[in-house]
């Protein structure tokens, strides 16, 4: 025993317990176990610990109502409505769109701030500074809606004849 005690190998013992050893190693460890009280004790502890865990696991599993868990999960999914803020955020989530869109908006703002929009000017469409000619009469009219200027003239008899 004393002679074998020097060969105690906890790793090998664990593999023996887990039945991972080949036939030769298994036989060697079995032989060692017969003569080594400390390894026997270690093996017993492993076995009892394993039995305890297995027992508790069995009890827990057998006491679990899986159908109840499933019902709870489904109920939570049904109740967890996505808030509209998150939906909106997810709509604009792709960041690759945000920056070009921002750049475009900036350009439009710059463009329209630089380009002057025509200032509405009150008054007739045309102001007559001077009028001279070989005519018999002239009337200057302004349309009521958009104040467009109209010059209406009557030619002299000479001009009409020509």
């Amino acid at each position: 025993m004393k002679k074998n005690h020097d060969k105690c190998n906890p790793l090998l013992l664990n593999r023996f317990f887990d039945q991972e050893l080949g036939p030769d190693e298994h036989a060697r460890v079995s032989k060692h176990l017969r003569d080594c009280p400390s390894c026997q004790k270690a093996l017993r502890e492993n076995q009892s610990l394993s039995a305890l865990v297995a027992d508790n696991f069995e009890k827990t599993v057998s006491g679990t109502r899986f159908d109840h868990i499933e019902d709870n999960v489904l109920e939570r999914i049904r109740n967890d409505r996505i808030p509209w803020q998150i939906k909106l955020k997810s709509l604009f989530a792709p960041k690759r769109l945000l920056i070009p869109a921002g750049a475009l908006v900036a350009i439009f703002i710059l463009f329209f701030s630089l380009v002057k929009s025509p200032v509405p000017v009150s008054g007739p469409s045309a102001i007559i500074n001077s009028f001279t000619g070989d005519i018999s009469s002239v009337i200057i009219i302004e349309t009521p809606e958009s104040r467009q200027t109209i010059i209406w003239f009557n030619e002299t008899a000479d001009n009409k004849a020509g």
Partner: protein
Amino acid sequence: MKYVLSGRFGHPAPVLLLLLLILVTGLTESAWAGPGINIVVKTVLASQDSAYADPRLSELIRELQSVFKYSSYRLLSQNRMKLGMKETGTASLPKNRVLKITPIRIKGERAELRLEIFKKKRQIFQTVIQLLNRGTITVGGPRHKGGYLLFNISNSF
């Protein structure tokens, strides 16, 4: 930012350059159109012998109908010209008439224009007007084919 703007170009510079080009092109066309004045002269025959409204004159007809009682408006011709300051443009009118237009200067939102109508080589009248940018003036009166001739002059600068 680099990740987003680079895209297929692999570098943000081409995209930024493109955007800048678009911006400058837009500005060039709208704000810095150059020192010319675009003028359009429409010669219209207004009469009462039939009911006809030329679809190309719909806006003008709406204005004219508020002051005249003609039932027919026909577009006889249309002349477009781009004139610099002191440059005279000519539009041929029916019955050997000629309309000469000379921009004198631009003052604020109005262009000062000299309008002259000649019949053969004889001047019928001359007027100097200040026409609003994108505004129109209509000159009318000569008899023609049972109706009256109207010369609608519009400008933009």
